[in-house]
């Protein structure tokens, strides 16, 4: 049987506010356990929540960026359940009246299609703390520093039909929230957490199948794997005539396997009701305008500008514009690099490869856009060859120096561009290779001739100890052999 895959996402986005959603505690990462848990965060008796204005501003910015309706009157609700990392015994969230209403995000896919994913809504809520399962005499330790960190939970419509679309959307959302500056985007620290709802239905059917929710996927790669894994699992069940159970599953990326999460209450009954300690939040035109004024350039606009301003192709412009920090790094590189396309190649090539190899983010890179730009400028003006430039890059990355010119100088990587010296070398090499010269000159097909030039380049580079400018060698060869 043929199946349609139906995917919807729920994304928890940690907002980059200085303080928590309901208290003036710092949200800075990495503090000692429970040192950023105030009486309010601990839900101590008599304490009361007061909402953070910046959390609302960030949520409204997100809403504007996804062309959503802004909830003019949003209401906080209690979601009641017991868990040790939830101090109040209820999570304060927004159930019926969220801050962000329906909107959409357009995702550009690899095959050039543009996929529209509708946003059902996004609401503000508080994050929970963390349970540390190391052994404390058979006990679990609870750190409530994260409790009360503001989140927006973005809920999509079940519009995605493949892992590619889902991951494309996830990347786009990541790109949006980091470009807006409302989230640091660090998935390994849980700043952005994806839950994937998946169901299958017979091809063409209008009836949705039973869905499962796979939780807490902390990388795009795991997300892609988890979807493939879950689709296959459901397909196996359905094709064996079984029924998919509606449940929450935990995916283990390292083992590529998933399991059902055990829950004591078969059916959770969260008993939502308006939180009586808080009043309706009314968002007026002035507030929306103040959020609009803060909107930076969004990825789609940036992509268009990169194509226009730097003459980049659609693919490169898309890659470079998606991540705000990568985009900024590229622009700095291009600014100092003289040649924007060359800068793009180096940012997407060498630079990205090193980031990947060392599992670093753009902001953790040991090299700056200015430094890479200076190097690109030296490639552009033929001071250094591509292979020489890779050595310079490595030296800059490893911190041996902070300046490309200094590395070129100290490692003797400067290309020889003195035509007199190069002509002499060409003459010497050609004299040593009379057979190849004759072959070349007898060849009628210019394509094959061009290929045969490569046979002289090896000896020439060797003669120049790798420092001859290949472009100039090429020109001289063509002239001499043709003459």
């Amino acid at each position, binding site marked *: 049987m043929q199946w349609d895959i139906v995917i919807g996402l729920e994304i928890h986005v940690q907002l980059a506010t200085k303080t928590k959603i309901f208290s003036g505690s710092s949200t800075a990462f990495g503090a000692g356990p429970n040192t*950023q*848990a105030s009486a309010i965060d601990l839900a101590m008796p008599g304490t009361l929540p007061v*909402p953070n204005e910046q959390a*609302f501003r960030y949520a409204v910015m997100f809403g504007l960026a996804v062309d959503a309706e802004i909830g003019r009157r949003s209401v906080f609700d209690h979601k009641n359940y017991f868990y*040790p990392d939830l101090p109040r015994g209820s999570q304060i969230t927004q159930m019926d009246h969220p801050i962000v209403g329906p909107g959409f995000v357009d995702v550009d896919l690899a095959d050039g299609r543009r996929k529209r994913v509708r946003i059902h809504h996004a609401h503000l809520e508080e994050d929970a703390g963390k349970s540390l399962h190391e052994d404390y005499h058979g006990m*679990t*330790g609870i750190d409530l520093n994260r409790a009360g960190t503001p989140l927006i939970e973005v809920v999509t419509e079940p519009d995605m039909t493949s892992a590619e679309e889902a991951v494309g959307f996830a990347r786009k959302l990541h790109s949006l929230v980091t470009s807006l500056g409302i989230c640091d985007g660090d998935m390994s620290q849980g700043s952005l957490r994806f839950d994937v709802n998946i169901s299958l239905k017979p091809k063409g059917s209008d009836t949705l199948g039973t869905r499962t929710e796979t939780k807490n996927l902390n990388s795009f790669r795991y997300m892609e794997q988890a979807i493939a894994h879950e689709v296959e699992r459901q397909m196996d069940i359905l094709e064996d005539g079984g029924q998919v159970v509606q449940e929450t599953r935990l995916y283990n990326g390292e083992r590529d396997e998933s399991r059902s999460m055990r829950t004591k*209450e078969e059916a959770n009954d969260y*008993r939502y009701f308006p939180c*009586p300690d808080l009043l309706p939040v009314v968002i007026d035109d002035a507030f929306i305008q103040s959020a609009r004024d803060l909107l930076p350039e969004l990825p789609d606009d940036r992509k268009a500008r990169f194509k226009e301003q730097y003459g980049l192709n659609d693919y490169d412009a898309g890659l470079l514009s998606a991540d705000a920090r990568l985009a900024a790094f590229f622009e700095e590189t291009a600014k100092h690099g003289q040649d924007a396309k060359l800068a793009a190649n180096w940012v997407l090539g060498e630079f990205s490869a090193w980031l990947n190899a060392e599992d670093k983010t753009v902001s953790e890179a040991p090299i700056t856009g200015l430094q890479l730009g200076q190097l690109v400028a030296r490639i552009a003006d033929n001071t250094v060859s591509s292979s020489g430039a890779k050595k310079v890059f490595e030296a800059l990355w490893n911190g041996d120096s902070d300046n490309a010119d200094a590395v070129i100088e100290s490692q003797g990587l400067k290309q020889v561009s003195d035509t007199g010296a190069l002509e002499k070398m060409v003459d010497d090499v050609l004299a040593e290779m009379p057979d190849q010269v004759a072959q070349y000159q007898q060849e009628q097909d210019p394509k094959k001739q061009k290929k045969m030039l490569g046979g002289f380049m090896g000896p020439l580079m060797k003669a120049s100890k790798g420092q001859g400018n290949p472009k100039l060698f090429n020109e001289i060869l063509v002239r001499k052999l043709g003459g």
Partner: protein
Amino acid sequence: MSISREDIEKVAVLARIRVDDAQISALESDLGNILNLVDELSAADTENIEPLSHPLDAVQRLRADEVTETNRREAFQAIAPATEDGLYLVPRVIE
């Protein structure tokens, strides 16, 4: 309106309050009486009436995003039932 033993057991699980059989019998009668009292509501005509969550028709104030809390872990954990290394301890949580 009466409330069944099953309802009481279900609600006690949701509220995380252990009740034994003898208590359930007492609760059946007490909660049943309370629900009878509350059932007077069903007679009220509330068509087109908006629910009232709050006596004052006021709007939420928002707080500036400024750190106002300091680390008071020592004072807070001095009154906690079980802590170690700055963590609150609970029986092992199995996900």
